[in-house]
């Protein structure tokens, strides 16, 4: 018999990588709720058998394992965390406000990340111009949504803040690499203010991945992607 079966404390494990903004969401959520957990560091070039067993369909991080129960996909994990540990709720009670939070979290993943990551960081020339224009359009929607609020979740950090939070750190690195300003203080004052507020919030500010390491990684990603193109 495993002695852990006699241990009443919960066992919470997060499978993550140092760079993943998706895994970071899960870490933020657990820490904001004061839940203790262990981190299992994965190397995506050499995925552990356990990760492949727990997430056979997507084979990705993050994966949350709570007392043997496995949950995959960061936004699904966030909702699980919110429903399991009720302190410092990430979602409001009101159905419409809840739907709104989910909408902006999804918009971040489906549109914002795509346009900035795929359209700006990994492109150049005309394609990058188009990616930049799309990104600005997407950021304008975020600007309109955050105006008048401290966080997307209102007075406290909510699901949408956590989902969009990568903008408060990873974006700076992208901007430096491509030499383009996306969240311009003049164009998007409310979003710029949110960025500051979120980046410096307790817990959030203690958990950002190393800037220089990220820059090296993103430069490599950009070069690899551009190198794939036809010779000029």
């Amino acid at each position, binding site marked *: 018999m495993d002695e852990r079966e006699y241990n009443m404390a919960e066992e919470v494990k997060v499978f993550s990588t140092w760079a993943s903004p998706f895994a970071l969401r899960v870490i933020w959520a657990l820490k904001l709720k004061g839940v203790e957990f262990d981190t299992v560091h994965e190397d995506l070039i050499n995925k552990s058998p356990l990760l492949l067993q727990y997430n056979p369909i997507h084979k990705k991080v993050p994966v949350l394992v709570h007392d043997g129960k496995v*949950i995959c996909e960061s936004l699904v994990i966030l909702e699980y965390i919110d429903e399991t540990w009720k302190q410092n709720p990430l979602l409001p009670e009101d159905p419409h406000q809840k739907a709104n939070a989910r909408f902006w979290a999804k918009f971040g993943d489906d549109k914002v990340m795509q346009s900035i990551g795929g359209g700006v960081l990994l492109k150049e020339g005309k394609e990058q111009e188009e990616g930049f224009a799309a990104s600005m359009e997407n950021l304008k929607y975020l600007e309109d949504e955050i105006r008048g609020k401290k966080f997307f979740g209102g007075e406290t950090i909510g699901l949408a803040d956590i989902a969009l939070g990568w903008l408060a750190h990873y974006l700076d690195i992208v901007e430096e690499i491509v030499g383009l300003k996306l969240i311009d203080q003049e164009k998007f004052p409310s979003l710029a203010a949110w960025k500051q507020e979120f980046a410096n919030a307790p817990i959030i500010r203690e958990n950002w991945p190393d800037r220089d390491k990220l820059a090296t990684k993103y430069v490599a990603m950009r070069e690899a992607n551009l190198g794939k193109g036809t010779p000029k």
Partner: protein
Amino acid sequence: MADEVTLLDFWASPFGIRVRIALAEKGVKYEYSEQNLKNKSALLLQMNPVYKKIPTLIHNGRSVCESLIIVQYVDDAWKANAPFLPSDPHQRAQTRFWADFIDKKVFEITKKIWTAKGEELEGAKKDFIECLKLLEGELGEKPYFGGENLGYVDVAFVPFYCWFYAYETCGKFSIEAECPKIIAWAKRCMKKESVSRSLEDPKKVYEFVLELRKRLGVD
């Protein structure tokens, strides 16, 4: 205190059908508003400024967008009967995972089935069947993904059933031959009024797909 509910939708959209099933399951009275997607209405643009897409639900003047978000909203706003999600958080997470899988993987593949040719088409068919087999695994011996009753994953996936005839005809293959359990599940769902009344005639959908193919220059 009467609820005013309007659904901006397009007849052939499986995403719209999800919402129709959800509202029917909850017994919600609503106005169905067929949208012209080539000439979008001012109401659609006002209620869904970000995506400008259907389905868009309007409930007492406030809009909800994105089909799965709408289905969850319908579940939250009309709590009294027919819950789509289980009460246990881990089971809820599993349910959400599979609905997300349908949107992330399955839908993209199905588009290729009716637009691609040659090797790309063969690849898409293979991927589609693989996805269906994964879904069959998740279904197991249960009558519905939701267990004894229709649940979130059933609502998320069954609308695509009325597109199966179009996939099979364009792709020249039989889904039932490869995944009989999925077809059996779909037919079981169709016995429910909320589903049979919401899904469109597969032949009509196929005609529509042929039109789309012409418009896209597929042949």
